[in-house]
Structures are given as C-alpha cells and as structure tokens.
C-alpha cells in the first residue's frame, strides 16, 4: 500500500485539491501507522465544512526532513480515539472535542483544554447547553483515594510574577503520585480571529501568541505568507531573522539557567543570569527598538536593517555577554550543592518523551534528536547548520545542560552571521496569497517546534489557521516528570521546562 499522504517540505505550499481526502478509517490507520514508522504528530486539527468537520494531520518525518499531510471528512459527531494507541495526540483530540463538539470515543482523559464554549453551536462533546458555559478550572480531576492521601491545589494566581495556571497534586506526604495541570486562564480567542486574515492585526496576534517567542512565531507566520505568496524573503532578511531567533533563544536560555540557580538557592548565577538575560534582550532592542523583537520580522523580510556600526556594536555586546554567561554557567556546574539538586530530579525517559511527543530542549534532554533547525531547516539554517545539543539523562540537569550547550552554539552562530551578513535588501514585497492552498511552516523556537498551518480560501484569505506552540506538546511532560518526586521539587521541575501558558491557551 502506498502511503496515503501528500509530502511537503517545511515552508512549502500545496494546492488543497492535491491533498488526499481519506475515509476516516484510513485516516486513522495512516496516522497510527505513521507513528510506528517513526513519524511525529506536528499538528492534528479540525476545520468546519458544509458537511461537518474536516480533520487535518501533519506528521513530521525528521529523518527525511519532510512533512506528511492528509485529511478526512468527519460527518458524525464522534470518531474512535487514537490516543490509546498513540499518546501524543491526546491533547490534540481534547482540543478537537472542545472546539468542534466531536467526541473522540474511547479517549481516556476527555476534559476541556481551554474552557470555552464549542465553536459549532449545537455540537458539544460534553452535551453542555449554551447557558451552562464551561467554568475554567472546574473539571473532573484525577484523584487518588486513601487514608493518608492529600491533594494540593495551586493557582491560577501564583506567588510570583507568572502567568496563571492551575496545578493539582495527589500526594502522600511529600511524595507526588500524580500532578494534573489545568490551563485555559490565558485564553483570549486568537485562533478564531486569524480566520479571514491576513489583516491589520494579524502580525500583532502572531507577535503576542507567546510574547517571549515573538520572533519565533512571527518568523513562522512570515515563512507561511512567503510560501503562499510564492516569493521568498531576501538572503539578508534570512540572516537577520536567524540572528534575532538565536538572540531570543540566548535571552531565554540564560534567564532559565538563572531561574534554575535561584530555585536551588544558588544566588551568584541567579543574579548574573538575570542581568545577562536583559543584555541579550537589549541586543534585540538594538536591532529593532523592542526587547522582544516586536516589529522586526515582517512578511518579505525584516523591517529594520543594520549598518556596519550597528553590527560592530552587536558583536561587541555579544562578546561581553558571552564571557559573562560562560563565567556564570561554570560556577553553576562547579557547585556540588547545585548538582545534587539537579541530578535525578524530574526524570523523563527517552521512551516517555517520544510517546508524549515532546519537542525542543525538553526532548533533546531526554536524548531525542529533534530540532527543526537541523531536521527541517529553512532560511539561513539551510545554508549554515547549527549542531544539535543533546543530553541523555532526561532530568533537570539535562534540561539545564542542553540549554547551556545551546547558549554556546547560538553565540557562535550569531557571531558568524554578524561577520558574514549577505548584502542586498532586507525586505521585499510579499505578493497576494495563493487561493485554495495549504502551507505548513515550522520554526525551532527556544522552547521547541513552533508549527503554523494555514489553509486559504478561493480569495486567498485564511480559511483556517492553526498554531501549535511547543508548550502544547510539552505540558504533559512536566506533569509526568513530577511523578514519584517530592512536591518541594515542583518549582525546580517547572523551571526546567519553563513552558508558556499563553502559547498553550491562545
């Protein structure tokens, strides 16, 4: 049997007519079969149609650097769940149920994801009426029963300056049997507003999907527009986007190392890295005036160019920060008290990470070789490769150490890019979008794979736009990492993942 998929590369476009429309059974078999052939689920989502709902799947073939796409029509309000055989789609199926009111029959954990009413009036996976709108945080939490079991509930308002989320621990003394994470507090209805675009606000939605990943998400979006418009950005724009993306990674990884140090009470690295994170953000501000890269990445290229003086200044600041980050990190690795807390805490095995479909540093820390810059490169990463940073132990130490390896490699990368900036324009006109097409765009954000999928209508506007932030894949990884840990290690485990609430909640 030939694979029922249509294969595209990252940042490519496909006429919707060429996309195989499978029977539901065949679609299911194809997705489950792809799993056994070593593919990852990058996206699984629904798009409303006249006859009901269309399901779309995008599977990543990391070895070949290709993406397999397929779709199926769903005329009933139920379909057999794929989760029991393919764990990594568990949240995608819950999202399908919540958004479109279809029931993945046999799903072991069918609860709301973001706590909003169904987008299709009259269709509800939980048979709720319009009046009985879902109440955030009110769901059927998993409970452990027993004489000495106690439940710890945290959030949505946390003790620090941090986004809202609700965590429930089932504990026996300090020992955590299970953690359940219930989000949705940041849900502001972004995906629905992208339909019918691009319009004035679209790029601003992209830059605020997850504010600390403005460059990553804006790059994924612009890559998609350029694919649909049939005109690539300029080489200089690719290089500047690459620099901005790596600066974003540097700022956040550095901040994470500092936060991890702070969490185990190792204040030198905590205070140095807090300052250094700001230094990297200020480098991004040197490029475009915004510490988060707002306004930099635009369709067709970048909105801000650099001259030699600015490039030299960036280089100078990079060297100073590189020296200090190395110094701060070496202190961390050299402190036995820190290592005693990092090692063997919050363990995620390679097998579990693969089952859950983890991405980014969390996946690489468990030994998975997943990095879009390496496996599905676009833009500057097609020309200049960046080594993969992998650790094996899957604990807090590994997640911290992978970040450090990436800091070193990103510094080298930015340094070399600054030296070899291609000449030419930093931006060009982006043509109108091709009608009736599908495009997929992946970018390796600092948390992992950012996946944007767009479908255009007959006028070249977005008929559907799907965003999958890396956190969507990874939140369950954090929940699993807490099993059989002490509850007092939760903050440390949490920071070792440092996931986005708003990127998940959209």
């Amino acid at each position: 049997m030939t694979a029922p998929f249509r294969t595209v590369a990252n940042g490519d476009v496909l006429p919707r007519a060429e996309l195989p429309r499978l029977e539901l059974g065949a679609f299911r078999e194809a997705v489950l079969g792809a799993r056994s052939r070593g593919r990852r689920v990058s996206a699984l989502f629904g798009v409303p149609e006249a006859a009901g709902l269309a399901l779309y799947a995008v599977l990543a073939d990391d070895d070949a650097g290709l993406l397999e796409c397929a779709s199926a029509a769903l005329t009933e309000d139920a379909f057999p769940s794929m989760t029991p055989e393919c764990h990594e789609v568990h949240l995608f199926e819950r999202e399908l149920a919540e958004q479109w009111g279809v029931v993945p029959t046999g799903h072991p954990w069918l609860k709301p994801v973001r706590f909003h009413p169904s987008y299709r009036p009259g269709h509800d996976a939980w048979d709720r009426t319009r009046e009985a709108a879902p109440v955030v945080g009110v769901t059927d939490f998993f409970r452990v029963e027993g004489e000495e079991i106690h439940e710890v509930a945290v959030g949505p308002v946390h003790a620090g300056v941090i986004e809202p989320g609700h965590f429930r621990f089932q504990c026996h003394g300090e020992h955590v049997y299970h953690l359940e994470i219930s989000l949705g507090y940041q849900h502001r209805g972004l995906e629905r507003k992208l339909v019918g675009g691009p319009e004035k606000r679209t790029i601003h939605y992209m830059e605020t999907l997850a504010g600390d990943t403005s460059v990553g998400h804006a790059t994924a979006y612009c890559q998609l527009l350029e694919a649909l418009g049939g005109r690539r950005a300029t080489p200089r724009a690719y290089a500047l986007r690459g620099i901005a993306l790596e600066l974003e990674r540097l700022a956040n990884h550095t901040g994470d190392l500092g936060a991890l140090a702070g969490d185990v009470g190792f204040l030198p690295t905590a205070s140095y890295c807090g300052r250094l994170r700001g230094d990297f953000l200020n480098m991004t501000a040197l490029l475009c005036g915004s510490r988060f890269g707002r306004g930099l990445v635009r369709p067709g290229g970048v909105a801000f160019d650099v001259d030699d003086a600015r490039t030299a200044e960036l280089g100078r600041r990079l060297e100073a920060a590189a020296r200090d980050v190395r110094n701060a990190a070496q202190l961390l690795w050299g402190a036995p008290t820190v290592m005693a807390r990092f090692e063997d805490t919050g363990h995620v095995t390679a097998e579990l990470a693969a089952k859950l479909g983890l991405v980014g540093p969390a996946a690489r820390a468990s030994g998975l070789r997943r990095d879009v810059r390496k496996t599905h490169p676009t833009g500057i990463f097609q020309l200049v490769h960046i080594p993969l940073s992998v650790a094996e132990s899957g604990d807090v130490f590994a997640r911290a150490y992978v970040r450090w390896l990436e800091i070193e490699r990103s510094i080298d990368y930015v340094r070399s890019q600054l030296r070899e900036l291609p000449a030419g324009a930093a931006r060009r006109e982006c043509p109108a979008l091709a009608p009736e097409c599908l495009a997929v765009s992946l970018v390796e954000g600092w948390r992992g794979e950012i996946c944007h999928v767009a479908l255009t209508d007959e006028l070249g506007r977005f008929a559907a736009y799907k965003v999958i932030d890396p956190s969507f894949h990874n939140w369950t990884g954090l929940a699993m990492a807490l099993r059989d840990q002490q509850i007092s290690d939760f903050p440390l485990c949490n920071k070792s993942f440092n996931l986005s609430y708003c990127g998940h909640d959209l």
Partner: protein
Amino acid sequence: MWRILFSRLKQGHRTAAYPVAAPALPDRLRGHPVVDPTRCPSGCQACVEACPTDAVRVDDQGLGLDLGRCLFCQECVSACPEGAIRYTTEHRMAARRREELVLRGAVLERAQALDAKMLRLFRRSLKLRQVSAGGCNACEADVNVLSTVVFDLGRFGIQVVASPRHADGLLITGPVTENMKLALQKTYDAVPPPKIVIAVGACAISGGPYAGHAEQHDGAGAVVPVDLFIPGCPPHPLTILDGLLALLDRLGPKRVAGAATSGSAMDTP
C-alpha cells in the same frame, strides 16, 4: 567560595545609576510618540486606517493618539505621508487617568503622585501583588526584570509579594480574560484597603491587540478601579519603573531622569 568571589569581581557592579543619571535606552526605542496635527492634509485618514487597534483617531478635535490602545508598532508612522506622527526615545509615559493617555499634539503630563495620606503609607514601602490576566507574558517578563540587579526595585522600597494579604495594591497585566475575571476580582478583594491598582501594558489598559474579543474584558478597568496606567506593548522596564516612582513622588526635580537627548544610545553600556 573563592571562585564565587572571583566571579563577583569579574561580573562587576551592574546596578544602573537611574534615576540620578539618564537611562541607557536603545536608539530605535519606540517611546513617547509625538503627534503634529498641523501637518495633517485635510481629509487624510491614512494613519487611522493603518492602526491595528484604533489608537489613532481623527474626530472633531482633530488627530488624537491613544497611548492606552497603542501597540507602539510603526504602522501609522509608515502610513503618514507628512510625518505627522513620530516616535521619540522618551520612556516616561505613565498617567493617572485613562483620558490623559489620549495625545492631542502635546506631550503627556507627568503622572501625579498619590495624595498626602497615601504617600505617608506607601512612599517608602509599597508591596504589590502581580496578577497576570490573559496577556502574552511580555509585560510579566519586563516587570520581573525590575527585580534583577540592574534595576533593583528593592532599593526604592517597592517589592512584589506572594500574597494579596501582604500587598498594598495590585499590578495587573493582560486584558482580563473571561477565565481570569473571577480570580482577579477575588485577588483584589483580598487586598486590605487602602489599596492601589496599577495597569501595566496596552492589554491591561484597553485590551491591547485583543481589544473587542469576546473572550476578554478590554482591560483591568472593567473589573477594578485603576490608579495608574503604564502604556506600552510591552512597556520598557524603565517606563514601568518611572511610573511607579512618579506615583510615589520619588522623582524629585533633580532626580528626574529623562531620555538621553543627544548622541546615540548605541554607545551606552
């Protein structure tokens, strides 16, 4: 221990001289915008049409720019054929009343300090509980930055605390999503009076990029009374700090640190 001490020497003293000295700001910073309605050709609506959040309006009073709705993007600047709108690197933009944020050609008035009674209570010690209510986490990140050694919020007696029961007020970010409304209300109710509320960022002032979405409430003002508005998307940390210090009357005439007016900010540390 010796290694730590050596590293301390290497890393150096990093706390900014602000507010005594002018702050180091990027030269491309999009700070306080300046609007010049005299340049507007009659009937031109280019900036209004370009603005993603209806921050720019032309009404019977002429051209107005609402800093509370502004995302500090470049759309209106690029759209204007006459250069009637431009950004400066001025970071000071806080205001006490919502309507003060609408620019009509002049420069924003400095935010008024609290009244004498409130200043007696809070001037030397202000404890804030931060509530994140549906934004994109950028405002939270730049509020967090104020606790690093560079800004060292603690030296002004301002601190973010873990419990609303320990707090003198709330610092709110995000447009207040439907799913955070109750949590925000409960947190506000838990703060003992007298209390103050500070809205940080376009979302918390007007809903920001999400203004008008059914899933949110167009800012903190829909749920709680706001005493200080700090615009930006996100505001620069110094914009937030300046707002807090202005509120507490901690910026005397000698200690008002404005934007560096001459030279390029590129050569600042």
